[in-house]
């Protein structure tokens, strides 16, 4: 049944001759309506609350303490972007934003500090290349995520991409999800490892089942997970949901949430609270019952709008020259290894398609300049046989279908624009939300901190230590989890603490979180001043190196300690806290005033926040 996208007969060629068609997510008339509404709002003809809801529904989020500016969130289903789209975003960022774009943790691309009056122009440009900002914010179904490995992952049952795209299309502008109690998130994985399925309202992992001698496609569907001020891990609805019931399952879940979700208390109205308060068993029963009702009452026409076939990529890709493993001299690298070898080791993985590799572009907390975007677009055209890239929840880009024989050329091309940094698949690739650089809710500059962690770790060569490789560091600027700190090996969320009679930017440190199908939430341990975070993580690594048992990775060690099962001298989180007590101490303010400030600030710290717009 499984159709391979790799054609055997085609001669080897550079790139593919047929680029991916324009996906047409956007609509031009929406840009004109937006421009009109902004004028009416400025003339005082639309109440502020109505305008805010409208603005958010169209993907424009208010900027930190300055409502004349917006953060424009571009919805990128599955993170998949064509070179044309990447170039368009480059131009739009130069003309209307700050000359750079930002990869979010949910595969959106964000343009910051866009003047409200220019948002319609950004939208207009996006529509030309098929992108949209529609329903990127607001109380609706947000960007549908899909693992960036889907289609190339050696462990996947099948490629979930067309399913994720079909779901995204079905719900985009769908009347049934235009006014939900709160935002709603759907994530697709490729396998049990890759994908954020346990921390979404609906998480789907592709699976197959043998039935009457035939292989049936379907999904393991998790409901009611999500990260935030209070986070929950999603529950498995049933052992196996055949593909024919995926749409009904999603529709039923959305309908339940729409009917029963809390519309009163903004702080507790995500679906995970409903599931938690109702109890999983009750919710599960209701979901299954609702699905039957949906299946009985959904018209043939409506069901046809979920069209997986039309979302399949039917282009025949050329076969790559055989190459089973990475073209490296050594299996291990060090800080002293040639830069190319280090990059291969920390940024490139083989695909299930022989001879093809997926290469990652290391960004700093998701930042990429307009000129870098243009080089990236050109590199994708020249070296990716599928001629698209996917942005990743780790705030990097994955360029897939690169031939092993062309990896070095690809690397050189990226290097010409500063895009060939190592460490994308390692602990060095720290995640950071936008923090005080643009967000109303942020208390600390998590964005800069994540970049500082990355800079320091690459400088120390920690990306080359394979025992650290599966560990992650993620930073949020407030307790809401845009930086996904709860699924990090070592996570941080920002706050403010009075220390030695001064307000200090601090982070609550969490240990032992993980993503994937067995994902668990991290456990909060202690507060660390912002300027002590890097030293503290380095101390954790030092402790690990002293204490680990043979072959135990940093992530495994941290998880053991979190569960109170540490070997050596550090058995549990209490031991860990004691061992870190020294490194988090601040000297007197007169001795080191900088230690009391946040990153990116040369003046004293004070926590300033305004109303968030995560809820419309």
């Amino acid at each position: 049944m499984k159709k391979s996208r790799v054609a055997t007969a085609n001669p080897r060629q550079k790139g593919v001759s047929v680029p991916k068609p324009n996906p047409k997510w956007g609509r031009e008339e929406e840009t004109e309506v937006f421009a009109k509404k902004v004028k009416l709002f400025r003339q005082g003809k639309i109440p502020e609350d109505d305008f805010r809801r409208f603005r958010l529904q169209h993907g424009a989020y208010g900027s930190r303490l300055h409502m004349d500016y917006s953060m424009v969130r571009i919805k990128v289903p599955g993170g998949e972007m064509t070179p044309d789209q990447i170039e368009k975003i480059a131009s739009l960022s130069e003309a209307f934003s700050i000359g750079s774009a930002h990869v979010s943790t949910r595969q959106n691309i964000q343009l910051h500090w866009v003047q409200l009056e220019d948002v319609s122009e950004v939208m207009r440009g996006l529509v030309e290349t098929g992108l949209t900002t529609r329903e990127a914010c607001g109380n609706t179904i947000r960007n549908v995520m899909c693992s960036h490995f889907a289609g190339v992952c050696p462990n996947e049952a099948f490629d979930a991409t067309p399913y994720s795209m079909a779901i995204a299309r079905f719900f985009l502008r769908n009347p049934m999800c235009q006014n939900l109690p709160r935002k709603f998130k759907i994530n697709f994985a490729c396998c049990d490892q890759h994908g954020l399925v346990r921390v979404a309202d609906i998480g789907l992992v592709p699976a197959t089942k043998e039935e009457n001698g035939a292989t049936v496609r379907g999904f393991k569907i998790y409901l009611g997970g999500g990260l935030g001020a209070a986070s929950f891990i999603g529950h498995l609805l049933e052992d196996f949901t055949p593909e024919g019931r995926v749409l009904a399952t999603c529709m039923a879940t959305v309908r339940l949430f729409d009917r029963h979700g809390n519309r009163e208390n903004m702080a507790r109205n995500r679906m995970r609270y409903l599931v938690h308060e109702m109890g999983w068993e009750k919710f599960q029963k209701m979901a299954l019952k609702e699905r039957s009702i949906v299946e009985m009452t959904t018209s043939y026409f409506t069901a046809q709008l979920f069209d997986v076939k039309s979302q399949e990529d039917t282009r025949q890709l050329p076969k790559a020259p055989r190459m089973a493993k990475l073209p490296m001299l050594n299996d291990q690298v060090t800080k002293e290894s040639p830069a190319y070898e280090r990059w291969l080791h920390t940024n490139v993985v083989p695909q299930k398609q022989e001879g093809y590799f997926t290469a990652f572009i290391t960004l700093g907390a998701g930042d990429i300049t307009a000129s870098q975007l243009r080089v990236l677009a050109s590199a994708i055209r020249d070296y990716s046989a599928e001629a698209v890239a996917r942005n990743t929840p780790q705030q990097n880009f994955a360029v897939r279908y690169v031939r092993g024989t062309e990896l070095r050329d690809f690397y050189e091309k990226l290097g010409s624009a500063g895009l060939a940094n190592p460490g994308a698949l390692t602990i060095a690739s720290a995640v950071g939300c936008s923090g005080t650089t643009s967000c109303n809710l942020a208390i600390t500059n998590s964005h800069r901190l994540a970049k500082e962690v990355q800079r320091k770790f690459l400088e120390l060569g920690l990306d080359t230590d394979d025992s650290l490789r599966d560990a992650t560091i993620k930073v949020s600027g407030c307790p809401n989890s845009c930086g996904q700190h709860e699924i990090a090996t070592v996570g941080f969320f920002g706050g403010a603490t009075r220390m030695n009679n001064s307000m200090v930017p601090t982070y609550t440190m969490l240990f032992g979180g993980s993503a994937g199908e067995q994902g668990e939430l991290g456990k909060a341990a202690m507060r660390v001043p912002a300027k002590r975070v890097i030293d503290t993580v380095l101390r954790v690594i030092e402790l690990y190196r002293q204490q680990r048992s043979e072959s135990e990775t940093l992530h495994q060690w941290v998880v053991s300690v979190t569960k109170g099962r540490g070997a050596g001298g550090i058995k549990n989180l209490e031991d860990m806290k004691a061992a870190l007590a020294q490194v988090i101490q601040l000297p007197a303010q007169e001795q080191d005033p900088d230690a009391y400030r946040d990153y990116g600030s040369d003046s004293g710290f004070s926590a300033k926040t305004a109303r968030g717009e995560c809820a419309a």
Partner: protein
Amino acid sequence: MRAGAAKKKAAKTSSGSAVQLPIVCDADTLRSLVRKKAVRVVDVRKADDYKQEHIPTAVSLPLARVLENDTPEKIVGIMEELGISDKTPVVIYDDTFGALAARVAWTFQYVGHINTALLEMTFRQWKELGLETEKQARTFPKARHLLNVNRNIYADASYVENVKSQPGKLLVDSRERLNFLTEHIPGAKNIPYTMVGSNGSILRKADELKRFIENRGITSNAEIITYCGSVGTLSGLTYYALKLAGFQNVRLYPKSFKEWKALGKPKEEFKDAAYWDLSAE
């Protein structure tokens, strides 16, 4: 390339007298004027770049020389030396997305040379299109030019200071967004210079520019004063973008924010966000 709109406006007079140029001159029009020896082309890049190669028949006038000779009398003297008379059509180009050319064009118009246009593209784009160049330095016989200062396109600090008390007048800051957020003249609106150009052309189409400004709720009868960081180059380009969009009353504050700050005038600042850390440099 966008030849159409500009070309239509460049209607030639039947009597053979000088052509009245549009605000932006397209390459074809310029090449035809060069062939007819009916234009003075002014290259405002550095003298060394000019010496390497330039558009045929162009004379060299580096922006620095204009800035050093900061009086209308001296500017007219330079124009006469370059063989520019009152009626000579002048087309100016640079290699800095039109900003330097715009500053020089504004200066010419300020001292009374009305028939001045910007080349629609930079020298680099001209080269990329494979259009002709030459190496030979050009001089022309000295011409006569009247001095007729046009105060209506100029603003100084005290003029700018009085804007806020006058409805119908508006200050536009042409610097990039983050510079503007950091500090600007109180009440100014930001139209970054990056907004007004597009690939292959130093200025976007008139209807596009018009729409950008209409989006901002600015009506076409408003008087707009543009400024930027130091010498009025970026804001010079914005000056012409506004003219192209159909605004009649536009002024340039050539000494811009640098002078404003040096004079200790008030500023509006925004310090509540660490926006510089979004820069990917």
